[in-house]
């Protein structure tokens, strides 16, 4: 897991770490059981106060995202489903926002943009069904 801290985001560094682990967990970049870097090397690498890293890890632990085994380190937990939906939504929202900005630049009005989304969803749904039909036929 490679972390990146951006002080210009205005978000406290420990929260940036927390969010990056959650995103990595939701997107599959980090798998359950995988180890997080230990505090000292990560602090040295990012030039962050060790207390900041410790705070991030204890926050992740209290949210049930990671577990810390004494003397062994911190690991991503198997099941933290209550958080996953929220994170998935967050990831999706980022993509939607980008599309909205793009629509604005290309001067596509809001209503037309929403229609387009519906059109695309229908198109993809038709494709998915066609795939399934093919599968049925080959059986």
């Amino acid at each position: 897991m490679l972390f990146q801290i951006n002080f210009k985001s205005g978000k406290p560094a420990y929260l940036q770490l927390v969010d990056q682990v959650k995103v990595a967990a939701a997107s599959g970049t980090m798998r359950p059981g995988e180890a997080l870097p230990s505090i000292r090397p990560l602090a040295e690498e990012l030039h962050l106060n060790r207390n900041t890293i410790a705070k991030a890890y204890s926050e992740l632990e209290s949210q049930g995202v990671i577990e810390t085994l004494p003397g062994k380190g911190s690991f991503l937990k198997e099941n933290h489903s209550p958080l996953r939906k929220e994170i998935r939504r967050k990831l999706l929202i980022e993509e939607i926002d980008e599309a909205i900005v793009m629509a604005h630049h290309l001067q596509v009005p809001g209503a037309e943009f929403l229609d387009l989304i519906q059109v695309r969803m229908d198109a993809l749904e038709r494709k998915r069904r066609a795939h399934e039909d093919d599968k049925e036929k080959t059986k």
Partner: protein
Amino acid sequence: MNSPIPAIEIQNLAYSYGKAEAVHDLSLRVLPGRCYGLFGRNGAGKTTTMKCLLNLLRPQRGQVRVFGHDPAKAEVEVKRRLAYVPDQVAFYPWMSVRETLDYLASFREHWNRKKEEELFERFRLDPSKATGALSKGQRTQLALIAAICPETDMLVLDEPTSGLDPIVRREFIETVIGAYQEGNLGNRTILVSTHLITEFEGLIDEFTIMDQGVSVLSLEADEARQRYQRIRARFAQMPPELDFQSALRVRRDGREIELIVNGSGPELLERLRAHNPEALTTEALTLEEIFVAALKSEEPR
């Protein structure tokens, strides 16, 4: 719950060299386990303040307390619990690196030999070399080893990285984070004075910006980065005349406006949004930019 005894407490400190007032009515408090930055230009009064904490100077007004003690009355107790890296590092030039460390260790009740070895390796210092033959960077590295091995409760660093090359500076910061903060996590206090703020950005919990002997701004680093923002807006036509009184700085060029704000970000963002900008972005200022903004806003407009 009782609040812990502050590692450092300064109240209304004043100190003058003859007629030249170096520190004027300075107050600040550092809680145990914090990394506290004292930022200021050269001559702002940082070193004088630190010297008062170490009983190298006696406060002329106000008082200083270190771990709850008056450094003038409990000098041994205070010095036992802290290590100091001054801005000008000086050793006996005829002593070797090894002899210097043994000599300095003889004043300490505790000395972590393992850590010493680890740091020797990291800095690739030659123990048999006379300290007079060391470069400025190597002298600072030696001073840092001497400050870290006693594993004291507090580390006081006065302009530790100025005049050093970038590699040595990075190693210095990494050593403070890695070797010093290790063990007793959450209880090792750091006071660092510097005008090279960027490299300490991630280390600083809280800071005071000094100028001409007074405190200009004292804040938590996270809070400072939330309050101090740069807002950029671009409009389709020439931007309307808006009230930006609450901004620290306003730059305009054609259809673009850039504001530096302290706390009034949300209000000004709303005002800009009302005029449908083509683009509107905000970012936090870094501590160094906050330092510059705070000192500039002190100047008469």
